Each structure stands twice: as structure tokens, then as C-alpha cells.
């Protein structure tokens, strides 16, 4: 009998767990001294600034390159980085850029005005197929280096060869000076220049692109060390870096995680130093704050979510319908119950974290007021049902169901979630104008200016104006703001443009997002940027390490 009982313990598979735990054990990462580990996802494109638009590759590119401007990790305001000065002409169409002298790339070659001009021309030139092409559309001569496909993307004809290879608006003056001429006035143009697509590229890039992709050479605070696909990307501090955001750490290992959950557990147990997002399961009941204690960080991020209307559909053309739906949504309750407070109710079309932004632009139109909603809706002929579309691969079902519940209860309309299987299918629907009801729209700032949240989405014919909104008064106001002589004046005018949107309500602002991040005990002075990245310049290792 004794023997039998012993055997049973061995046989019961659960017991093996005890056996197995004898091996392994805590143990930190295999990093070198002064190197920190940060979670990332596998970059979707080669590590070239002009072709990187997603966050996985983006944070590596940001570490490797420094452009003319950079954004303050505290409030996101734009500051000079490699640029010594950017002087606008009187009407804000021509900008003279002076570079700080003696900067070098990681291969030792100097960073000159020529490197910027060549890189920008390369990124804008249509046939190169860079995904950031449209960022250069303000520059004079952009139309000449790109070409429209005569019969659309799906047609048999190829887009013709562009007329020119270089934009006429870029002129090198001397080694450290160049001039940018824009096709239209744009006072906030210098603010946009902190985006990584505007980084310079070394001459070796143009000589051998493939070799560059294997071993990217930047001019930033970190140089590329090694990359193992799907595993990690290692960068090390660049000792000759001249910028004032020189880091104190010796390097960063970006570790690829397939699941956020794993990265989060690793941060708690000290195997990873930083995770810039907390998995939804840990947000429930503020569990992440208990897990991480004072190592839990929260920061307003430049991200928002809205519900867009297909204005090409007869059904949604009456602004009263759109306003009534907006008034029927209890944003506060959804933010608390569905998002556990990780999102805040939107008070305007521009998220609150943006520099110079005042809250409350949307006013009463975005507040929960079921009586007023019902009353407004009764003045229209709208019958419903409302179907809200979103891609189903991004976890949007819960809040859309909650919004639908509000619409059902407060307006008495039928409402349902229409899941579109993948994000790419969802984008195809935008392009084909196939929506028959409101659809989710999320937007991340490319640079900290209200322009990115207004012009790119609501101007007539803008690249991401999927709802077909068109109001000449709004376009006019945005153009005025762009032409304003100072950034402050511009922001005031953007605010006026935003008021026009509140009147028309082509889309309903719903939530602003904040970033929840966590770090290990090895790090101190940890700052999360409004772009949800770790600020590598200020982070330090604790003494005992």
C-alpha cells in the first residue's frame, strides 16, 4: 500500500510541476552592464526611418536617429535637436534650416544639409514606395516627384514615371544650411520635423540600401549593434553623440514579445526593465498598481478614438441625428466600466495631452444628456437601426457593445456591432466607401500639433477623411491657421476650426487614451513620452546595479 501511494504521487501529473521547479530560478537577463531591456514587437518593415510607421520599428528608429527637432518627453513640445535654428520667411512658406556643426553619423561621416535633402527627396519620390511619402506633401514640388495611377490602384495601368526626382522646394545652401519652400504657408511646419521620417540618411544608404537595412547607420544617441529577427534588437550608446539628449545608460536591448502579458509578468519579476503598456487583465480593479507599486506610471497620450459617420450615406446626413447619438453616449461610465479608467471621456476633437490644448472644445455636445438626445432625435426622421463597424482583431467589441446599449436605452433605436474580421479589410471598406453606419476611428499624433488631428482627417479630400466630410468654412479656417505667423496664433485658429466641427459633428469624439507603463527596480528617473515610449535620454540605472 505504501508503495502504491508513492506511485500515485509520481503519477499524478500535477506533482511534476514541483519537480520541475527545482531547475531554472529567477536570474536576471543576460544584458551587459548599463544596458536596459525594453519590450517591443517585431518591426513590420526594414529599419529605415522613411518606411517605419508602426511602433515596433518606430522606437528603434527613434533611438538610432535624431532629426532637426525632438519632442519634449514631458509635455511633447517641439525643441531644437540637430537644428540650430529654423527661420521662417514672413509668410511662413520658406524655412531656412541651420544645422549644428560637427555632428556625425555612426560611421563617422559628417551629417550635412545634403544628407537631409537627399533623404527627404528619397522618401517623397513615388517609385521608392516609402510608406511616409505623404508627410512631404507640404513641400513645393511634391506633385512632381509623385504620380497618380491613372486608373486607380486596382487598374491594369502602372502609375507613370514622375516628372522629377527631386522636389524643387529643397535647396542646399551650404554644408550646414538648407532651405525648404512649402507650396502653402504652414506656421507649424517646424513642429512636424521631429517625426522620424524627416531624419537624415548617410551617404552609404544611397549607395547600398540592402547593406543599410542589414546594419542601419543613424546619427542618434544609439548605434545599431545587432538584430535577431523575432527575438531582439540591440543598440548601444554612441559615444560621439553631440545632442543634449545624450543618455546615461550604455545601451538598450529591445526584446520582442508576442504577447503583452508575458512582457508584463517579466517586468514584475525583474526580467525586463520596461513595458510601455499594461495588458487589459491587469487593468481590472487597478491590479497593475498593486503589482507594480510606485513603478507604475501613467501618462496622457496623444491618441484618441471617435465614431465617424459615413456622410456619403443619405441616412446620416442630418447633423441632428449625429448630435443626438453623441448626447446619448455615457462616455464617463464606459471609460470606467469597460476601460477601467485607462481612457478618459473626450472633450474635443484634439486629445488633452497636446501642447497648448485647452479642454472642453466640444462642450455640451459631448456630454451625456439622454433627454436632450431623445428630443433632438424626435425632430428627425431617423428610424435606425444603427450598426457600428470596427475591425474585430483589435478588441473593440466591448466598448462598442456598451455604446450600442446607450443608443438602445436612451434613443430607443436598434443598435448592433458589425465586426469586420481584420484591420486591413476595415481599411478597404473606408477606401471603397462601403460603410452603412458609424465606424470606429482611432488616430495617433504624428507630431504634437492640432493640425494632425484636424487637417489630416477633416479637410476636404484629406488622405484619412474616410467619412467624406467637406465644409469650405472649415477648410478655410485650417488654411488660415496654417498660415498664421506664430504657433500660438495658429493654435487659436485651429481651435476655431474645431468649433466648426462641433457644429457639424461629422464624427463623435469618444475617448482620449492614456499610457499605462511599468518598469523594473533597476530603473530610476523613468519618463514616458506622450508618444508612449520610454525616454531613453533621462532614464537611469539604480546605484546597486
Amino acid at each position, binding site marked *: 500500500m505504501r508503495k*502504491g*501511494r508513492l*506511485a*500515485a504521487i*509520481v*503519477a*499524478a*501529473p*500535477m506533482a*511534476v*510541476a514541483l519537480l*520541475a*521547479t527545482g*531547475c*531554472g*530560478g529567477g536570474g536576471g537577463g543576460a544584458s551587459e552592464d548599463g544596458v536596459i531591456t525594453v519590450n517591443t514587437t*517585431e*518591426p513590420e*518593415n*526594414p529599419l529605415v526611418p522613411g518606411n517605419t*510607421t508602426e511602433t515596433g*520599428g518606430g522606437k528603434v528608429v527613434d533611438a538610432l536617429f535624431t532629426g532637426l527637432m525632438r519632442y519634449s518627453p514631458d509635455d511633447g513640445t517641439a525643441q531644437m535637436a540637430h537644428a540650430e535654428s529654423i527661420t521662417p520667411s514672413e509668410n511662413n512658406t520658406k524655412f531656412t534650416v541651420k544645422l549644428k556643426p560637427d555632428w556625425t553619423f555612426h560611421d563617422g561621416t559628417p551629417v550635412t544639409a545634403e544628407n537631409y535633402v537627399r533623404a527627404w527627396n528619397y522618401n517623397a519620390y*513615388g*517609385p*521608392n*514606395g*516609402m*510608406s511616409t*511619402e*505623404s508627410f512631404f506633401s507640404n513641400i513645393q514640388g511634391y506633385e512632381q516627384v*509623385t504620380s497618380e*495611377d491613372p486608373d486607380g*490602384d486596382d487598374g491594369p495601368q502602372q*502609375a507613370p514615371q514622375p516628372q522629377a526626382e527631386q522636389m524643387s522646394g529643397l535647396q542646399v545652401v551650404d554644408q550646414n544650411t538648407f532651405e525648404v519652400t512649402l507650396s502653402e504657408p504652414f506656421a507649424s511646419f517646424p513642429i512636424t520635423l521631429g517625426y522620424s521620417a524627416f531624419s537624415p540618411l548617410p551617404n552609404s544608404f544611397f549607395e547600398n540600401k540592402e547593406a543599410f537595412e542589414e546594419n542601419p547607420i543613424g546619427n542618434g544617441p544609439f548605434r545599431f549593434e545587432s538584430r*535577431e*529577427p*523575432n*527575438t531582439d534588437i540591440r543598440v548601444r550608446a554612441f559615444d560621439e553623440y553631440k545632442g543634449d539628449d545624450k543618455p546615461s545608460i550604455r545601451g538598450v536591448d529591445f*526584446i520582442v*514579445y*508576442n504577447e503583452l*502579458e*508575458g*512582457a508584463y*509578468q*517579466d517586468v514584475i*519579476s525583474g*526580467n525586463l526593465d520596461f513595458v510601455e503598456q499594461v495588458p487589459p487583465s491587469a487593468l481590472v480593479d487597478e491590479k497593475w498598481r498593486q503589482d507594480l507599486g510606485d513603478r507604475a506610471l501613467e501618462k496622457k497620450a496623444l491618441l484618441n478614438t471617435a465614431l465617424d459617420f459615413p456622410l456619403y450615406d443619405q441616412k446620416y446626413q442630418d447633423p441632428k441625428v449625429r448630435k443626438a447619438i453623441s448626447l446619448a453616449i455615457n462616455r464617463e461610465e464606459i471609460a470606467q466600466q469597460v476601460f477601467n479608467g485607462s481612457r478618459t471621456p473626450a472633450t474635443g476633437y484634439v486629445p488633452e495631452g497636446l501642447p497648448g490644448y485647452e479642454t472642453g472644445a466640444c462642450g455640451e455636445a459631448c456630454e451625456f444628456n439622454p433627454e436632450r438626445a431623445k428630443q433632438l432625435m424626435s425632430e428627425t426622421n431617423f428610424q435606425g437601426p444603427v450598426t457600428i463597424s470596427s475591425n474585430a*482583431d483589435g478588441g473593440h467589441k466591448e466598448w462598442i457593445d456598451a455604446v450600442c446599449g446607450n443608443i438602445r436605452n436612451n434613443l430607443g433605436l436598434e443598435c448592433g456591432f458589425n465586426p469586420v*474580421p481584420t484591420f*486591413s*479589410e*476595415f*481599411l*478597404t471598406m*473606408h*477606401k471603397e466607401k462601403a460603410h452603412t453606419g458609424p465606424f470606429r476611428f482611432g488616430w*495617433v499624433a504624428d507630431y504634437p500639433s492640432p493640425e494632425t488631428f484636424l487637417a489630416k482627417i477633416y479637410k476636404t479630400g484629406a*488622405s*484619412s477623411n474616410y467619412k467624406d466630410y467637406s465644409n469650405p468654412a472649415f477648410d478655410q479656417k485650417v488654411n488660415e491657421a496654417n498660415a498664421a505667423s506664430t504657433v500660438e496664433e495658429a493654435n487659436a485658429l485651429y481651435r476655431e476650426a474645431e468649433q466648426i466641427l462641433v457644429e457639424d459633428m461629422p464624427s463623435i469624439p469618444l475617448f482620449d487614451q492614456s499610457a499605462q507603463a511599468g518598469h523594473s527596480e533597476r530603473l530610476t528617473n523613468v519618463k514616458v513620452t506622450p508618444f508612449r515610449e520610454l525616454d531613453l535620454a533621462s532614464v537611469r540605472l539604480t546605484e546597486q546595479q
Partner: protein
Amino acid sequence: MGRYVLRRLLQLVPVFIGTTFIIYYLVWSLPGDPFAGKCGERPCPPAYIAEMTEKYNLDDPVIVQYFKYLGKLLTGDFGETYAGVEISELILNAYPITLRLALVALVFAAVIGIGAGILTGLRGKGIVDNMVLVSTLFLISLPVFVTGFLAQVYLGTEWGLIRPTVSSSAPLSELIVPGLVLGSLSMAYVARLTRTSIIENKNADYVRTAVAKGLPGNRVVGVHILRNSLIPVITFLGVELGVLMGGAIVTEGVFNIRGIGGLVFNAIVRQEGMTVTGIVTLLVIVYLIMNLLVDLLYAVLDPRIRYD
């Protein structure tokens, strides 16, 4: 025997072409433009899409695309991902890790499963039998991600006995817990399969004969009962290696193991048809070879089975 093996090997060719074609076709005919989501919420420039379309021969009919792809594949060229990384390099990095993980899982499944099966099968009803039945039922009813997540949180984060995730080199010692999690389901099945099989054979005529001849107990059990009882178990384990290699997606996700599972999962999400097909091709080969090996093992276990 030789002819049998040859015939089986030749059969692999149409199966191989058929499966890879179906996978290729399915992946590339997923609705939605595979490049539409590449540039965030903004549309991608047409030139970018045109370049990608040309690079992956997307303007050709699927069948032409497939043969172009197959032609390259036969010369060992698996193509590149959208990020410009050689797929063969990705597979080469990931395959050994997944194989190691699958083998750890298989060893657990075999050793513990067969052990528990023998114990309970020979002994018959009793406390041991009940315990094994209950614990296997428990394991079968738990989804792998629950077991994995519990192991990660308790053994890893709470008690600090293991690393919550596996480091990039994935040494064997770190794969023990993930392997156990991955193999837990097969372990339960193997235990039950062995138990039933032994109980069946215990009363077979040849066993009674062997006992009647006065053979020692060890020999009756080891040579007569076990050899025959293991045939279904071996079949199961053989196929299971293939399943474990392909099905490690969840376990690899939880423990962040840089194996095939995570690779294929990401490739499906990003609609990287080339990567998916390349990996599935290899998985198909593993399955086919394992099946062949299992069939050959039958003859070793039971001399009554002959090929030709």
C-alpha cells in the same frame, strides 16, 4: 520493406504539393488588401503597394504565383517577409527551439503518461486508479492557456521559482515548465490510452498462455502485454509530435518562446503568406515523416504486422 518505404516516400510528393497549395491559396485569398493596414489609419502610397505587389507576384493568378513560389522553394529560397528578413533565417532560428519544446513535452507525455497507464492498467480499480482518472480528467478539461498562465503567474511571478518567460536562447532548463504545460493534455490522453489498452490485453489468450506456461511476471508484463498495448500509444505519440510542433502557438505565446508557433501566428495576423506557407510546408514534412516512422514501428512491436 524497402519497396514499402519507397512507395510511402513517393506518396509524400502529391500530399506535399496539395497541402502547400491549399495553404498558399487560403492565405493569399484572405479578404482585404494585405498591404492596406501597413501604414496605420492613413492609406499607403500607391507606389508602396505597387512595389509590394510586384515583389510578391500578386498581379498573377494564384496558381501562377504558387508555382513561382514553389520553384523558388525547391531551390531552398523561402523568400522574404515584408520587413525584408529572410524567412529561411526566421525558420532556422525558430525551428530548433520548437523542436526542443515539443520533445520535452513528448517526453513528459510518454514517461508520465505511460507510467501512469501501466500502473493503473495492471492494478485495476483502487485509489491509484481513481486518482489518475480524476487528475487526467482535470488536465483534459483545462485549456492550455489556463494551465500556462497559472504556471507563469504562480511559479514565475509569485513564487519566483522560474523565469516567467523563456530567454531568447531557450535553454532546456527553462523549457521544462512550458514543455510540461504543452504536454499536459497529451500526457492525460496517453495515460488513459495505455490503461485501456493494457486492461484489454490482460485477458487476451496469449497472455493467459504465457502465464500458464509459467513465465515470470516481469516477462509476461514487459514482453507480452506491454508490446502489444503500446501500438495505439505509439501511433498517438507519433502524430502528437506533429501536433505539438504546430500547436505550440498558445504555449509559445504565454512564455514568449521564439519558436514556430509565435512566428506562424504573427505571420497569419499580418497576412504574410510566404512565411505561413514556408512554415506549414515544414510542418507537413514533419507530419508525413512521423507517420511513416510510426507505421514502421508497428512491425517492430508486433511481428504479426507485415508490409508489402
